[in-house]
């Protein structure tokens, strides 16, 4: 992450705004505190000066000029801050007592710079407290003498210095904290964005296995990372399935196409009937190829999840019993027995057309791969409020090692290479089941094969159907 990058980032802009607003409020606080403190202290100062003047005036009234002069002599030796100033002069302007030079008698309170009190001292600052301005209060006594009491603004100035210092440090620390903390926080944020960017760049460069690093914090960034990864997983799955499909098509459609080619190559039709037969056979072969294509596309479309839009409430029991009923005579004609045990089940959300095809594929799978004499059972039961469709036969079954492979596209057992079918029937069943959030499980029926389709419980179903647009179940024209 370059510094320029950071300055442009959202977190930095937020940080500046935040620091600005915070700084403004601290400044406002500073001015309020400063103003109130200064006003209070100068009030206290003028009160204190006035009180001292009144005390001295009382002394004068009670004990006369001598007593006042003595009291002033005692007071001026006290050098502790805040420094006090006194002046007692007679009516002629001659100095009687105090630490100030005689001056024009001006009654009332006022503030004087220290230089005007000690005009001869120049700018030399012998004692620190002498530099502060002085608040004086003078009044003419009964005998014509002039009394002046003053106190310098030491306290107020000290308080002002303390406030400025405190706020100075406070603001400095706040700025440091805001900048440091913001940079750390924003840096962490940017680092994680950068992680995501790095991952997406690697994926764009072709490394599909890259994932955004996640941590267990559970904040928005973690959720974003988890969601991104889930999306990438899903995309990778779709990509792989797409790749798989193209490979499957390439491999499995070569066979019928080369068979067709050989047929034409070897054909030496002599009569019109020969021609007609050749054409008929070839059309049948081409139809089979086209059907494989359409089954593949169908599986692809179902896997992409686009069919969710056509979901509605469907009666699984009604679908299964209608499909089973259609196949009862078919099985009978082949010397097989098809038993149907369908209990009523609660309506599920699903695609009527696809569920019909799923049931038909499963029953046909049993009929086509079993010899005469077997019993095929189609059962729809409820296991803990979950609809379970079970199709079991007493036929040759599938070796345990191959049980899960038969759900793949084009996977066919060696034993069934000669039976008709594209090898896509069970793959389509799996795709339809997954679209409905159902699981397909193949197991040994001892003897025979048992296929169990477990539909999701009601809660999960709601989640799957979600807030998607609802459409009526497809009906026939």
């Amino acid at each position: 992450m370059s510094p320029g990058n950071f300055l442009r980032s959202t977190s930095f802009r937020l940080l500046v705004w935040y620091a600005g607003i915070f700084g403004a409020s601290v400044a406002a606080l500073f001015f309020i505190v400063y103003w109130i403190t200064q006003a209070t202290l100068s009030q206290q100062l003028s009160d204190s000066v006035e009180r001292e003047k009144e005390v001295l005036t009382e002394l004068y009234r009670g004990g006369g000029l001598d007593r006042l002069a003595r009291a002033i002599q005692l007071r001026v030796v006290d050098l502790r801050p805040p420094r006090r100033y006194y002046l007692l002069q007679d009516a002629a302007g001659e100095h009687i007592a105090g630490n100030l030079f005689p001056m024009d008698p001006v009654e009332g309170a006022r503030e004087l710079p220290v230089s005007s009190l000690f005009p001869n001292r120049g700018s030399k600052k012998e004692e620190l407290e002498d530099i502060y301005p002085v608040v004086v209060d003078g009044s003419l006594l009964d005998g014509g003498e002039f009394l002046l009491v003053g106190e310098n603004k030491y306290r107020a100035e000290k308080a002002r210095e303390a406030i400025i210092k405190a706020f100075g440090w406070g603001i400095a620390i706040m700025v440091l904290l805001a900048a440091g903390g913001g940079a750390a926080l924003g840096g962490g944020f940017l680092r994680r964005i950068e992680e995501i960017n790095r991952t997406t760049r690697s994926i764009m460069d072709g490394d599909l296995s890259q994932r955004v690093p996640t941590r267990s914090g559970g904040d928005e960034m973690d959720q974003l990372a988890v969601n991104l990864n889930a999306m990438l997983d899903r995309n990778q799955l779709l990509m792989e399935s797409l790749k798989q499909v193209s490979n499957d098509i390439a491999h499995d459609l070569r066979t019928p196409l080369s068979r067709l080619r050989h047929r034409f190559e070897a054909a030496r039709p002599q009569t019109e009937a020969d021609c007609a037969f050749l054409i008929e056979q070839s059309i049948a072969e081409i139809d089979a190829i086209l059907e494989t294509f359409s089954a593949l596309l169908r599986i692809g479309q179902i896997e992409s999840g686009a069919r969710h839009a056509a979901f509605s409430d469907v009666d699984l029991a009604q679908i299964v019993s209608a499909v089973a009923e259609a196949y009862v005579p078919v099985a009978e004609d082949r010397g097989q027995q098809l038993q149907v045990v369908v209990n009523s089940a609660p309506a599920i959300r699903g695609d009527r057309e696809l569920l019909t095809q799923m049931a038909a594929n499963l029953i046909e799978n049993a009929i086509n791969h079993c010899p005469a004499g077997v019993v095929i059972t189609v059962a729809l039961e409820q296991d803990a409020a979950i609809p379970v469709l079970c199709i079991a036969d007493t036929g040759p079954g599938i070796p345990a090692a191959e049980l899960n492979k038969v759900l793949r596209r084009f996977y066919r057992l060696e034993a069934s290479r000669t039976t008709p079918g594209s090898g896509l029937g069970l793959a389509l069943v799996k795709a339809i089941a997954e679209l409905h959030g159902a699981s397909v499980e193949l197991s040994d029926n001892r003897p025979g094969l048992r296929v169990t389709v477990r539909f999701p419980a009601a809660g999960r179903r709601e989640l799957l159907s979600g807030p998607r647009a609802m459409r009526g179940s497809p009906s026939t024209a």
Partner: protein
Amino acid sequence: MKILLIEDDAHTATFVANGLREHGHVVEHSASGRDGLFLASGGGHDVMVIDRMLPVVDGLTIVKTLRGAGVKTPVLLLTTLGGVNDRVDGLEAGADDYLTKPFAFAELLARVNALARRPPMAGESTVLQVGDLELNRLKRTVTRAGKRIELQSQEFRLLEYLMRHAGQVVTRTMLLENVWEFHFDPHTSVVETHISRLRAKVDRDFDGELIHTIRGSGYSLDVAR
């Protein structure tokens, strides 16, 4: 019949138009959606065969526009392989039937004929009669030459469909779609098995075959052929 064909692919158009003409129909062809819509609005056609994928104005839009303008001519929509949701979309837009490419010409012909002679739904009578065969849709009873015939529910629906299209060819796919609601091609002889069961009940013990197999096309229920 006068049939309007809107199809941009020259091969398919020739294949369909020639076939329909061979069967005595008058075919008007348009290769673009815009011209097709113009022709269709003119009216006077018994059936329209419209390709779904057309340049500029697509098939769905044509059907929607026509239905919006009150044109009630039956429409058969054609589409390319694989559109799983396409059939529902097409029917919702107002098409009457749907056929996926590639198709056998016999299939198209049977569907065009079925569409043209489609009886109005509201006016359908409760009793269907072909020769001495009688089917009561309300009582759900079937008699032939006065004798009661017991049918399973799917056999009843099969016979009902055949009788509603009496004299027409109905294909295996049409039966699968309309009787069993199978919108896929099963790998077993579901239709053949049920037809043979139905024949055993309806035809075997009576004079004169009613259910006929039309080679390469499908089946037809008719008094005499």
